[in-house]
């Protein structure tokens, strides 16, 4: 099954009930990720990228109104799995996650080492001692001295805590780690050293990463593939080289032009307008309202077209490509 991607997501939809109606947070998202690959999911806040992470881990809130699509792990469809089976075979076994702001969610009264070892104790039923040894190993991997095992979260700096929650995600040796905004609360130097740690781990363990972020610049530190989300949909999915070099979707282009760059004279340009309300998204293309290249076809929901082998774009401008 070597040709099967590690994870394949097909037409994932997740709608929430809210006081004002149904929020279509994910509306037909498809992508895949291979072994030892780093995928970056980019998007503005409210575009559904955190929902995507939770959907992949099947950590759903109670107000879910609709959840459908296919989630194939090594070619095996897991959507039909019972909660118990999913927990036993997928979550934190094959796929683990570093939640947004997880570093601030460490239990303040439990030693860091114990918290990081918890998945081993819960999922694998390891003894405290076994778990501690393995945890010390993983601490080394993420760049924290094993002395810190015995410390409490408040004794660690922000960067250290972020490494600790990363260790917690790695401790069960998953194939894929999903990270939601792992560096956005950190200082520049700390960010850079965490990204270094991720690169090293990817090289040494062959782990795949899905990095969810709004920070285009930092994401380029690891990205091999880029998926750009807008209003609950995937608008472009491409190799990092192509996406950063030659974005295809009009939104991708504007996004790239809005990124402030240190080594560039031109002032970044902001994208006018606001993303649509997901309670009642527009009929046609969801970006049309803000799109400079809008034309009459955009009143209809665009299909996803394939450009070359490795890129898909959800935009009528690329209708010359084959249907994906």
């Amino acid at each position, binding site marked *: 099954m070597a040709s099967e991607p590690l994870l394949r997501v097909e037409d994932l939809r997740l709608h929430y009930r809210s006081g004002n109606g149904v929020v279509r947070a994910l509306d037909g998202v498809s992508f895949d990720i291979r072994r030892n690959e780093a995928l970056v999911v980019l998007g503005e806040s409210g575009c559904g990228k955190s929902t995507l992470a939770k959907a992949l881990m099947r950590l759903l809130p109670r107000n879910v109104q609709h959840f459908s699509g296919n989630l194939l792990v090594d070619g095996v469809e897991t959507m039909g799995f019972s909660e118990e089976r999913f927990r036993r075979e997928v979550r934190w076994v094959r796929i683990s996650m570093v939640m947004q702001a997880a570093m601030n969610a460490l239990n303040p009264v439990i030693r860091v080492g114990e918290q990081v070892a918890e998945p081993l104790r819960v999922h694998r039923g390891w003894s405290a001692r076994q778990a501690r040894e393995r945890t010390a190993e993983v601490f080394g991997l993420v760049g924290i001295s094993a002395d810190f095992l015995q410390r409490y979260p408040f004794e660690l700096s922000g960067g250290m805590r972020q490494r600790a929650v990363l260790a917690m995600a790695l401790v069960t040796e998953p194939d894929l780690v999903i990270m939601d905004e792992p560096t956005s609360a950190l200082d*520049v130097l700390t960010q850079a050293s965490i990204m270094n740690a991720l690169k090293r781990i990817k090289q040494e363990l062959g782990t795949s990463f899905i990095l969810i972020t*709004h920070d285009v*610049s930092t994401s380029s530190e690891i990205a091999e593939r880029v998926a750009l989300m807008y209003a609950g949909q995937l608008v472009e999915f491409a190799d990092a080289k192509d996406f950063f*070099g030659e974005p295809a979707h009009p939104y991708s282009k504007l996004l790239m032009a809005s990124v*402030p760059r*240190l080594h560039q004279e031109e*002032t970044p340009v902001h994208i006018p307008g606001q993303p649509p309300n997901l309670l009642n998204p527009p009929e046609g293309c969801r970006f049309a309202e803000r799109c400079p290249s809008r034309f009459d076809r955009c009143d209809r929901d665009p299909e996803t077209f394939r450009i070359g082998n490795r890129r898909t774009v959800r935009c009528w401008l690329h209708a010359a490509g084959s249907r994906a």
Partner: protein
Amino acid sequence: MSAPARDIRRSAAGPVLSARDLHTWFELRQWGFLRVGSVRAVDGVNFELQAGEAVAFVGESGCGKSSLARTLLGLHQPTRGEVIFEGRSLGTLDARERKTYLARVGFVQQDPYGALPPFMDVRRILHEPLIVHGMRNRAEREKRAREALEEVRLSPPDDFLSKFPHMLSGGQQQRVVIARALILRPAMIIADEPVSMLDASVRVEILQLLRSIQTNHGLTLAFITHDLSTVRHFAERIFVMYAGRIVEQAPVNELLNHPQHPYTQALLGAISDPDPDNALQMREVPPGEPPSLLKPPAGCRFHPRCNRMIPGTCDQEDPPEFEPRNGHHTACWLYR
């Protein structure tokens, strides 16, 4: 109202605002009375801001930049040294003069959600500073409030005046904060991380707004930020702070193209522009973390992390400011 007339803004010769040997220390006490030391948040800062210029104070969290902003605003009493505004030291102002000072310096906070009182509508938020500063005429206040909203491009003002903060998006809230800072027609604006809490897509917009207001009115603008990549486009001069001190200062392009202090070099080296090649290489990051401000290291504060440390000098003597290039100052022994 003692309306600060706009035309006297540039009358004062020399810098608008300067800091001389400024120290802001926070005393730490145990059990409420035992002195156990001081957090030296601002520890010997000197600078001068000229009228109408936009500067940025850049540094990592905990480097003292927010304490500096609050000291400049007179919210913290300096432990030593002084802040001089238009030729007068803040410490010598009486209560009435202090009030005038606060009207002359607008403040834009980091967190718009926390800066706006949730129980006031936009109209009241904007009227309040005017009332405090003695503007009794309601119609005139209303006119000012509308002008301020137009200025921050919340137009038409009628759509916003009766809204409460929770009804506005983050970007709109920050615009209201800016409008409030502008409403007394200040000579200077201090903005403490004005966009760090906002969505990436609105950041540029807010920074552009601040910058255009600054140039239109010839205001002096001091940005406090951790984000060097945006600074380039929105400030003219950069001050780099590390552990309570300014370690380097220069005009923007000069600083970005020829960073002198090893800390600045490390900082610039850690910032990525979106480039797919980034994924292929590791970044060089100095080891360790910024020192505790309770007990900063002797000598240069960056020396424990510095790869060009000169033993016997850097770890013992505080580096004074050198000027290795024209108009480019840095506190580093390498340029002795």
